[in-house]
């Protein structure tokens, strides 16, 4: 999910949107919730699948459901893919605090030259 662009920050300044800081915070909260849900889902699938298939594989000697080596490889590959994507989503989340502060800083700076922004946008 892409973050706020500078053009969108300028739109907030030029439009003189009420309580823009809260709007920016809301956007980042949506993004955080979305990315966290994806990370949890992906890591959860990876963990569940790995545990389930390993248990089934090592219980094969007791006569219960048998998981062949090939099936084990398939499942572990899927689990690995899911886990990798989940970790990637978590790594992206690390930067969200900095991005939120940067968005507020940029909004404040552009707001201080809003006369210029409004004049130019009005041309």
């Amino acid at each position: 999910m892409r973050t706020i662009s500078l053009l969108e920050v300028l739109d907030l300044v030029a439009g003189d949107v009420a309580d823009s800081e809260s709007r920016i915070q809301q956007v980042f909260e949506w993004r955080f919730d979305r990315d966290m849900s994806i990370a949890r889902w992906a890591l959860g699938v990876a963990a569940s699948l790995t545990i389930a298939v390993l248990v089934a594989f090592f219980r094969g000697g007791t006569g219960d459901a048998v998981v062949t080596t090939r099936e084990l490889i398939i499942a572990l590959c899927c689990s690995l893919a899911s886990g990798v994507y989940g970790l990637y989503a978590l790594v992206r989340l690390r930067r969200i605090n900095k991005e939120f502060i940067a968005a507020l800083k940029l909004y404040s700076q552009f707001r201080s030259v809003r006369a210029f922004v409004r004049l130019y946008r009005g041309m």
Partner: protein
Amino acid sequence: MLDGFWDIAWITSVGAAFVSVVSALLEVSYSISERKRKVREAIAANFEAILKSDNLKELGKYLDETLGQFDVAEYVAKDDVSSRIDRYIAKLKDYIGTSEEISEEERVPVPPREERPESPAGVFDLFEPPYNEILAEFETGERWNALARLRRHIEIELRELGIEMGFSEDQLRSAGQILHLLSTSGRVNQGPADQLRYAVSVCNRAIHGRDVSEGEAQEALWVAQRAMQHLRINDVPGAPQR
């Protein structure tokens, strides 16, 4: 039959896993190459020339079409992007002043009408550079550019005057602030200071998008020119005349 089914499932799962990992890697690679492309375009768009520009349209166009395409994630992640954006914003603040500085200057009282010298309406030749260039720009319709440039010129002149008088650069920020500092410390006469405040207030009205007539602009230019000449000759002993 079941073996065939599981063969298909095996191949499908391995393929799906491979595609998932490759997709994540491609997304990272794409964002890196896209950022590099945007930075190259920003460089190619003569960033340094834009920093020196006095033109409202050029400054605004660069902001919307080049810098505005970057997003906050790129601003945080890469120093070259944040450096260019910060320099551009500093240029804007330095050139036109911030809304807070402009608001403070507008609260300064304007000198009574009779203290202002007669404006030489129609006597374009009496304006020296750069005032005649600013007037020419105003008369071609570039009112915002002309008066933003006049404000900037007054600020630069006053800052240099302040430094010559022994003030530090930290104390010399906006034109209004510098005038207040110089006049309250007794370094300049109140008359020229009030005249420059009037000129700056006319410029600020234009920067804020309010109407400024040609007569007001000419008067502001004449007042600014006369006041700066007076400051240079009378208020700075031994200073080089301009």
